[in-house]
């Protein structure tokens, strides 16, 4: 009995700090968000009692489903493009020589060390009407008048893919690197040509990486509001911007909180899917 008590005391000491951290920084804010979503807004942007379901009913009434749909569509496009660009990139890194490999991985990680706002400003300078790309194209006589690239949906998609590509590349890289090279040799030995080896051996064995990469791209893509703010100029509304606006400009905290909750629920569903599919890993 004493021993059991002592053991549980030890485990409290060990997991205690993590538990407190989770309570304060994860659970408490979540409870607050849930709470706020059920309160009424005050004229000057605060929240007060009584409890109200107004946020949720206004959500149904207004055309927010369209915005949510647009956000999911953008996230899906981003994810697909990240996978398409990320897979070959990951394959090249995974198959590069031992000397080069760490440097290539470093290059993938490098952008994380620079604030993403600053990196997006970089894109703005490139894409502007008087920007570098337009200047070069006009200068070379390829086009007569500058193209309007900034503040378009294309620019937003470009920014999203740019921001999230590393999240797709890293899990893909890990799963491609894990493949035993003798499996590829065996497939060739058994008569498979390159594209058949890819379809029958490499792709199925890297599916866990593909799933991980998609989830890790798709989830952040849903909430990424500043890319569309900066490169889209707010021309198209996405769920991330919508939530941000409710808190900052529209001063409708209950609605913002309710929308955020919807986003959190979608994320949880996807994460569940991810861990389930992630079990594929055991098979490999």
């Amino acid at each position: 009995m004493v021993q059991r008590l002592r053991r549980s005391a030890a485990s409290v000491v060990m997991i205690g700090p993590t538990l407190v951290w989770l309570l304060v920084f994860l659970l408490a804010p979540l409870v607050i968000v849930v709470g706020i979503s059920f309160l009424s807004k005050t004229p000057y942007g605060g929240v007060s009692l009584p409890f109200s379901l107004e946020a949720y009913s206004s959500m149904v009434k207004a055309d927010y489903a369209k915005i949510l749909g647009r956000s999911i569509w953008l996230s899906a496009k981003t994810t697909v493009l990240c996978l398409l660009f990320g897979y070959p990139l990951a394959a090249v890194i995974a198959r590069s020589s031992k000397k080069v490999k760490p440097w290539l991985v470093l290059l993938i990680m490098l952008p994380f060390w620079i604030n993403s706002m600053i990196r997006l400003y970089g894109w703005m300078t490139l894409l502007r009407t008087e920007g570098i790309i337009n200047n070069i194209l006009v200068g070379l006589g390829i086009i007569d008048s500058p193209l309007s690239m900034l503040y378009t949906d294309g620019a937003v998609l470009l920014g999203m893919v740019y921001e999230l590509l590393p999240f797709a590349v890293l899990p893909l890289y890990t799963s491609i690197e894990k493949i035993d090279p003798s499996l590829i040799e065996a497939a060739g030995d058994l008569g498979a040509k390159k594209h058949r080896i890819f379809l029958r051996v490499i792709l199925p064995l890297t599916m866990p990486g593909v799933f991980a990469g998609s989830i890790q791209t798709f989830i952040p893509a849903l909430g990424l509001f500043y890319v569309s703010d900066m490169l889209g100029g707010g021309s198209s509304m996405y769920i991330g911007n919508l939530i941000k606006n409710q808190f900052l400009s529209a001063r409708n905290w209950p609605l913002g909180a309710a929308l955020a909750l919807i986003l959190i629920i979608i994320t949880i569903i996807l994460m569940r899917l991810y861990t389930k599919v992630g079990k594929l890993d055991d098979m490999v």
Partner: protein
Amino acid sequence: MQADKGIVVKMIDVVKNYGANRVVKKVNFDISEGEFLTLLGPSGCGKTTTLRMIAGFETVTEGKILLHGENVENKKPNERDVNTVFQNYALFPHMNVEDNIAFGLVEKKIPKAERTERVNEMLALVRLEGMGKRMPSQLSGGQKQRVAIARALVNRPKVLLLDEPLGALDLKLRKQMQSELKHLQQKLGITFVYVTHDQEEALTMSDRIAVMNNGIIEQIDTPKEVYNHPATKFVADFIGESNILEGYTEKMENGKMRVLFEEGKALIHGEGVGDDEIICICVRPENLRLSKTPVEGFSINGKVIEHIFTGSAIKTVIELVNGHRLTASVNPEAELFDVGESVHIYWTPERAVVLKTQEDTVYDVIETNPNQAIIDSLTKEG
């Protein structure tokens, strides 16, 4: 190009360089139809590289490889009529046993009905009936090995290449798989090229053994010949146990040859050896005889150091006056010499094999017998 009749693989002056490092040096040999050829040698001798060049995983730096008389220089592995069994099995982990075996048939676009039939035939051949739906992770090492063999054989290759296929199995299973593989090969009549560093495996399974060292083939012959008449010092040392002695020849009138060693005199069969030459000879432990009294023509004396019981025989270790140690294998029922006793060493002259001295090759010479370390440690403890 006209194909030599019955020759499946022909290696002509095959060289492989990795950068400045030459790992295979002008290798020449032929493999006949239905033959079981083993490439035997220590790790890093170039045996696996040679096999991988036949499979097409490695390019040939110089020379040619002919498969059925056809130069395969520009043929990819998938275009060659050979299949490989890999050391680590290399089964596709996402496919069950059936799909693994059918992999090559699907690539060849064999219709489903025939595919199923051939897969089942293979499952029966390697005695894995009813295991078709299992995943590789659910199989034991021996079963995985059988799937790997079935997956290669189902394509009916002209040559089956096996890269240390039994290396990961425990001793008992390895012995069992050795005889299974040998029977399989005899039954199917397919040419096997087998890579191993295990001399016993090579001796028991092969029709011919190519002993490789430092990228060259030291000897290629039947197991019996390789064991009884090793061509070089390396072969004598690598295969079985050997007592190797170096000395001067001195011709005698009766066709015999006297050799003068640092340790004393001895007789050998003189065929093909000139007068006053420096030669190396090899005497197997089972051919080394011990006597209490001097034997005519021999004058090598030593002291019995110890007896080592090996189960089927007893090895008597003798130290010569110059410290060189020899091993004699004696019948366990025979009366043993006392440890410390002085003995005279002799052999039947025909049993001493003259080894080729290859001055152009530099060996990492293993001067002592392979069990020397064990013998030393035993002596110290005793």
